[in-house]
Each structure stands twice: as C-alpha cells, then as structure tokens.
C-alpha cells in the first residue's frame, strides 16, 4: 500500500488579531481568570462527530486566563468585528503565489471545536484560495485550500478535569495551507513545508515567535488516515512520520500475532476490582491509588507479548487512551512484576482472572464510578486497532506521536452569521498586490545583494525561516555580525543551554546594544548572559560585559607572565579567559602581550 502524506501548514500573522483590534503580542501576564463549560446539546449527539462527542464525554470545564492583548471578543462576550484587512490581503497574496483560484467572496464558517481551545466552542475559518500547486524537486504538490482562520487559545495546563488556557493567542490570524496527499516521503514533506514557509514568511506579515508556525501532518499507509497535529519544527515533521510508519508496521505485526492465536474477546474483557489482593502491597503506585480509587484488572485475551515486547507496544496504545481521560495508573503483564509488585501478588491476580500463557493482563488504578465507561473505551480502541483501522488524531511528543482523540468527522461547520460575507473588491486586491511572497532562491539572492553576507549564511537564514529576525537585527547591528549571531552563536547557545529565546528578547538586546554602543565582543557576551539570566537588562548590567581596558589587560598579562613565564603568544588568550570572565578584544590582548613581553 502506498504511503500518502499531506500537510496543513499554519502561520500566525503579526497583523493584529483577526476579529478584534487587539494586538498580537501581550505585554503583561495574567489580568484575571474565568471559567466556562462547553455543551453540545443532546439533540446533536445523534449526528455529532466522534471527536466532538468524545470531548463532551470528558465533561471538563475550562479556565481562561485573560491576557492584556484580549478583549470581550476573545472572552466570547461580544460579537466579532470585521476581519483584519491586512490579514485578508496577506492570505490573498499567499493564495496567488501558490497559483490558487482566489475567492471573489470570503465566507466565514464556524467549525465546532469543543476541547475548550476556543471560548466560543468553534473556530472561525474561511477559504481564501483553492486549487493551487507548489513545485518541488519531486514534482508538483497540489494545494487544496488556503484558509484564513483564528488561532486557538494556548493551553497552559490540565488538572483534575479543568483545562487552563490563556487568551493571548486566541484570535491571532492564522493562514492555513492544506496540500493534497501528494507528498511521497518524510524528506519530501520537509521540503514542501519549507517551500510554503518561504512564501508566507517573506511577506513580512508572519509572526515571529516560537510557536508561530505549526504543521499538521496527514499520514496514511493503508490503515486509515492519521492526523498528527501541532508539529512545530521542520525536523520534527521527518521524525514523526518515521515514528508513525514504524508504529503502524509494528501494530500490524502485533495484530497478526493476536489474530493467529484466535483474536480478542469482549466477554473475557471485564475490569474487576482486585484491590483486596493488594491489601499488604509495598507498591507505591498501588498504595497511592488505593487512597483515592480502586485497582481494576482484566484479561486481554491472546495479547501476551504484544503490549511491550521489543518493538510491539500495544500497551502504549491503551495507556495513551486511558491517560487522555485523566487516568495515569496503567500497568500490564508484559512489564509485571514491576512497579514494586511482587511475583506472588501478580500471580494471584493472574490466577483469579484465569490467565493462560497467551493472555495478557491489564491493571488500572481508577475511580470505580468510571469503570464501565473506561472498559468500553479501551475495548473499542483495541477492537479498532484489531481491524487495522488506525485513523485518529495524534500529537507529537518529542520524536514520537501520542493519541489525542478520534478523527473528527466532516460535518461540523455552519455559517458564522456575525461576520458578513466579504467581497474581495479592488482595494483589497490592490492591497494584496502590494504584498509579494518570494521563493527560496529569490530570498537568498536578495539577502546576498542587500546585506553583503555570504551565500552560505543567506541560505541558512532562508532555510531556517528567520528572514525577518535577520532583517530586523541588521537594522540594529552590522549585517555580517547579525548573520554570524544568527547562523552560529545563537544555535550554539541553544544547543549548550537547551533553551530557545524569544526573538523579541534578542532584538531588544541588539537595540540596547546599539544605544550603549557595545562592540561585538560585548554583544556576544551579553547574549550569552541573556541565555543564562533570561533578562535583557540583567544581561546588560552584568559586570562581565564590562570590557577589559588596555591597562587592565596589560596588568593581567604581566600577572600571568609572573607565574607562567613560559606562556606563549598562542596560549595567552586562553590563559586570560581562565582568570577573568569579563570581555576583551583578543586583538588588543595580543598587542598587549607583545608589548609586555618586549618591556621585559
């Protein structure tokens, strides 16, 4: 069966929010919080899609943190304002650059989303362009739609059935570009994402922030379509596709194994309360579990050795599902004894369930009230996997993917009656014409010509999609120094510290450095300290960026030569660094070394 890969690439715009006049960035943290629930009325449950009813079954409530870049619109306390014109024009420009048929009218829809990430319970979205294509090294990839939608609220945390979101991100314009499943493999997927990225980012209207670009990957190898939502980095696209292919191949093997033994059996899958077997257990996880709930166990007919055994990991499929209902304590026979349980305790449970060699056993610590619901949910999932229908929505987790929810159905949109249909008139079309998206080649060429930086650096800047950051930095500091920072120093610091700084912080540092007339050594030191202290002002007031004067250097070198008379010209820089963490100009240090040496 052929692998089919499609992408949905999302870009936040920096034009101001889509349906209100709030800015995209927040300047202060939390203003206050409020709580809501979302309902899909029972009248709709009959034909509501699987994803929506799954969410409503979780009966969660949502807490929203109001940020200073949000207003009553984000709170769902006021109807939306007319869509941001610049955002519309940008989406039109991008659609044109992808060869789309641009709509002559833009019609907003409400797409039902009840995970709480939209205070309304729906996302506003409209098609701007259809039926485009992008050329790639492996042939053209068709673009099905270009949409302009509102971004969702940012999830902060989830605790006891309450999900906390921040409204700072809600309503930021999001250009969504969806491809047809024409992508052949993971490398190709990265190329396509990157090519689309140049077009959008080169408009200058894309937002610069850590999560400003997010991809959804649609993957199928014949076992149903899996949608992997929210992949933020290009390299991660490659990783999750590889992982997903392997996961599905291994599930195929696990399923074949179970089938060859006679398959699964609903009647033997019954979660029984086995808490009494553990009254004297030393297992911490079980003892903690018994404080708030009970221990349940069930047979998994014919599933021994498929739950966690080499590459076979059916256990994770079950655990991911159960975890999505907020239940953490899942154990199974492929990893037992373990978790502090003794072989004897485990055997007692196995015996009580009538486990035979081919059977596996599942143990879950949970609230007894939810047993029958969870039992059904688990069995449904196993049954679905057994039929090799692997379609679902998953999310990235490092270079792996995890179950998020069932695949949403199609019929969950209805018109946004609060936003009138927008006619793409002459003024909007003209505004779009003034925005000119460029390709990779054009971007590189421009950079070399405009800034006099090397082609290699220009390619790096273009391919990492940090064009905007570079251009802004080049306004503040020397362009070649900016290129050096972006291509070498920042990636080095990110590797060393494991931290990714907000681009605005780096720009603010450059701005202040310009005002304070710092030289490149001081700026680089300040950047290093910024990664350590996270605050621009703290970095700039740090004593380490105070540059050593000629006199101080000479004193230091004399001092070094007093103890290490044999110190050579080549070693002196390292020796100075050993004695001070302040900045200095290495060329000046060399000069001083020569002078001190001559004086002696």
């Amino acid at each position: 069966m052929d692998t089919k890969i499609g992408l949905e690439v999302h870009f936040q715009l920096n034009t101001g929010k889509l349906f209100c006049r709030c800015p995209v960035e927040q300047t202060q943290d939390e203003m206050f919080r409020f709580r809501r629930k979302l309902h899909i009325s029972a009248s709709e449950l009959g034909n509501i899609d699987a994803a929506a009813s799954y969410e409503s079954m979780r009966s969660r409530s949502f807490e929203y943190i109001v940020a200073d870049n949000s207003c009553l619109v984000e709170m769902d306390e006021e109807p939306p304002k007319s869509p941001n014109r610049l955002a519309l024009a940008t989406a039109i420009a991008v659609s044109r650059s992808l060869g789309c048929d641009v709509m002559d009218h833009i019609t907003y829809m409400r797409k039902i989303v009840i995970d709480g990430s939209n205070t309304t319970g729906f996302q506003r979205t409209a098609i701007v362009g259809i039926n485009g294509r992008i050329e790639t090294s492996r042939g053209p990839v068709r673009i099905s739609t270009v949409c302009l939608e509102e971004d969702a609220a940012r999830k902060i945390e989830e605790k006891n059935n309450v999900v906390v979101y921040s409204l700072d991100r809600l309503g930021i314009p999001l250009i969504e570009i969806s491809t047809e499943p024409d992508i052949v493999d993971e490398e190709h997927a990265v190329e396509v994402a990157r090519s689309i990225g140049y077009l959008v980012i080169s408009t200058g209207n894309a937002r610069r922030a850590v999560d400003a670009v997010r991809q959804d990957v649609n993957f199928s190898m014949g076992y149903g379509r899996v949608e992997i939502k929210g992949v933020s980095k290009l390299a991660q696209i490659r990783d999750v596709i590889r992982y997903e292919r392997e996961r599905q191949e291994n599930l195929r093997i696990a399923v074949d194994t179970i089938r060859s033994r006679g398959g699964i059996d609903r009647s033997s899958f019954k979660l029984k309360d086995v808490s009494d077997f553990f009254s004297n257990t030393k297992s911490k996880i079980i003892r903690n579990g018994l404080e708030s709930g009970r221990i349940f166990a069930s047979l998994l007919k014919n599933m021994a050795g498929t739950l966690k055994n080499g590459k076979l990991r059916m256990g994770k499929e079950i655990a991911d599902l159960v975890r999505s209902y907020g239940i953490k304590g899942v154990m199974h026979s492929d990893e037992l004894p373990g978790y502090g349980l003794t072989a004897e305790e485990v055997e007692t449970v196995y015996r009580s369930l009538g486990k035979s060699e081919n059977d596996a056993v599942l143990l879950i610590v949970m609230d007894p009230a939810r047993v029958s619901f969870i039992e059904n949910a688990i069995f449904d999932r196993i049954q679905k996997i057994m039929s090799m229908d692997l379609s679902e929505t998953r999310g990235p987790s490092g270079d792996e993917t995890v179950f998020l929810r069932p695949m949403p159905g199609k019929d969950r949109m209805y018109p946004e009656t609060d936003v009138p249909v927008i006619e793409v008139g002459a003024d909007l079309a003209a505004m779009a014409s003034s925005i000119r998206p460029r390709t990779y080649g054009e971007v590189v060429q421009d950079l070399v010509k405009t800034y006099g930086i090397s082609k290699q650096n220009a390619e790096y800047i273009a391919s990492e999609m940090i064009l905007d950051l570079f251009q802004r930095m080049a306004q503040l500091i020397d362009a070649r120094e900016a290129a050096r920072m972006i291509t070498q120093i920042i990636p080095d610091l990110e590797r060393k510290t494991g931290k990714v700084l907000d681009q605005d912080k780096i720009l603010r540092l450059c701005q202040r450095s310009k005002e304070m007339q710092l030289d490149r050594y001081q700026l680089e030191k300040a950047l290093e300290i910024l990664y350590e202290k996270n605050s621009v002002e703290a970095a700039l007031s740090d004593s380490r960026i105070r540059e050593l004067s000629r006199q101080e250097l000479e004193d230091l070198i004399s001092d070094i030569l007093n103890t290490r008379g044999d110190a050579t010209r080549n070693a002196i820089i390292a020796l100075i660094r050993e004695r001070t963490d302040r900045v200095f100009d290495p060329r000046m240090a060399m000069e001083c070394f020569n002078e001190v040496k001559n004086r002696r």
Partner: protein
Amino acid sequence: MERALLRYRNSVISGLIINEANGVITVKSSNGYNMTFDKSEVEFIERKREEYADHRKIEAIEKGQGEKRISVLATGGTIASRVDYETGAVSPVSDPELIFGGSDILTRFTVAVKPVMNEFSENLKPADWIRIGEIVARESSDSDGVVVAHGTDTMSYTSSALAFMFEAMRVPIIFVGSQRSSDRPSSDSRENMEAAINFAGTDIGEVAISMHGTTSDGRISLLRAVRSRKMHTSRRDAFESIGLPPIADYDGIVKFMGSYRKVSEEMKFSPKLDERVSLIYFHPGLNADDFENMISGKHAVVIMGTGLGHTARDLIPVIKNASANGTYVIMTSQCIYGSTGLNVYSTGRELLAAGAIEAGNMVPEVAFVKAMYLLGQYPHEQFRDLFRTNMRGEILDRDVPEETLRISR
C-alpha cells in the same frame, strides 16, 4: 434545495446551494465550507433538486419523571437550537430530553414546553405582555412553576409588567434568556434554563429573571424583575438588579440570599394596562415643541432626565401645562444608579412646582411599566400616591452602597 456541480475559474466545486440572490451564489461545498461567488463568475455543470426536511417548527412536548411540574413557555427567545451542519440552518428544539439530556433535571422535574409566540423581544408590545400574562396565569393552575423563555432585549419590561399584573401568585414565575445563541457550544442558555427550572421549583412568589451572575459559567443569579435592567449589550452577565443583590443564586442548588415574597394560596391577576404612556430620554437641545408633540395625548410620561432628574429649563412650561391637563409627568434619571433628588437644584424645584413626580430610585423602564399598570388598573386620583408606594419591591427603602452589597454577597 439544490445540489450543484459548478466551475469557478480553474476549479470544479460540488455542493448544496444555500443561497442564490443579488447576483451572488453561496454553495456549501463537500469539504464543509460555504463558498460565495459572483454568479457571473460560475458556470453550472449540473444542478439537481434534493428533498430537504424543514424543522423550523417548535411543538409542545412534556417529559420527565419529577414530582414537580414546570411549564416552560417559549416566546421567541430560543430555548435550544439544533444546527443542521448540512445546510447551516439553525432551528429551535422543544424536546426537553434533547435540551437537558445528561443533567438530572428530568429526574427531578417534569418539564412541559409550550410555544406561545415566536418573536424577537424588541417586537413585543404591551398587548403581548398581557397575552403572556394570561397564559402564565392559566399554566400556573396546573403546574408548580412557570418559566418564560424570552429575548433579553426587553425582558425587563415584560417581566416587570407581569410582576405588576400578578399581585399574588400561586407559583414562581421565572423569566430566562440567553446572551449567546443556543446553537453555540458556549451558549449560556442551558445553564440559565437549568437554573430557571430549579428557581421555579421553589416557593418564591415573585417574578424574577434567571441569568448568568458573572462571565464565568457555574453561578446563575435570580434577579427581582422590577429592579432588573440589561446593562450590557452582549455579556452573559448583562442583567443586574439595580441597587439590590440577587434574590438567590444557583450553582447546582438554589441558595436564597435575602428576603423574598412567598407564593400565595390564591392567584390575583389584573391584566389591564394603559398604553398611553411614553418613556422619553431627555438630551441637550431637545426642542420644547418636539417634546410637546411627543407627550401629546399621553396619560403619563416618564422622562429619563439628567443627573438627579433634570430637564432643560425650556421644557418646564410644557411639563407644567401637561401636568395641569392631567398628564402625569414622572422624573427618573439617565444615571440608572442612585435616586432622583429634585430638591437639590433650582431646576429640580421648578420641575416639582410644575407638577413632576419623582421616581426616586425606581428603574426608569420599571417606572414606565408601573405607570401603565396603575393607569389601567386604578382610578387616576390614586396615581400619585400609588406611584410612590412600594408595590412589588420596585422601590428601595435604602440606597445601600455598592461596596456594602458586594461584601454581603
């Protein structure tokens, strides 16, 4: 409805034709999106008719196993809606099981939903208030509580009218509305309605409004109709009872917070209103002739004056004249919060001398409804006395500071 296959530039689109008017056509495409085109830009490859059921009618339905029977009257504020994702059509739902599925309402109550009218509340007239009152009176004879689902725009007027018309009531009369339409997952209608049914199951003998107490879900407030006012165009907690804390809150259970009138053995319903009353918003430059025209032929006029209850000096002779000719002129304040005080400035004293009646801290719209009720129900000689008499809790004896009200919550 029609299904169409059409060409737009280089694209072929198939879908359901949702709308075709004024030179544009909207198609619900197979990917779920509506797309709108200039008709001149599209070429139809195929069009064919398709049968489609219309659910737009709301029916009377009764469901539930609870001992207490609650009547829910639908006047146009939709209780619940169903969205047809195929056509985008939003249609009302009256089946209580569909509305309350998943909650314990139907095990605790028997809910009977009845359509009364289907009108945006801004279209309602005093005659509709009477009609609603009569149906409520009828329903209250064989139920334990009546809930009136009503558009929020004029809910304070209708509920106040019922409050005056029902001098005594056998069962609670609870108005409920919503600020987010019920087709949305975030709608406040479900919680407001759930609370309204619970409030209707108590022994409160007043007309009151059940709406969100805060922007958060989870706490619904019960407000005395004759102190209530819609104070925000769009927020969930738009309704306030002016200068008075809510009578009760519902957060899963009903919690009464202050004293309230209890239901009576017998109902006393007097459905007569004099419609020749108007409510006038004074503004700088309001011309005396225009003002005179506006009040001509009225039996009473309620003026929303500035500050403590003032109008421009040049209107005073008109007021004096009207008063002398038997029109009652009532002064309220645009400030909403606080009382009128016509003895403080000379303008106020002149208004009093011209015959104006002070509404005190009565909410202007309530003063307006009260005037209609008094003129319809009582001899005109009693108007002045009764207007200043607290009949249904519409007048506050004390103007307690907001700060104190907040602490006592």
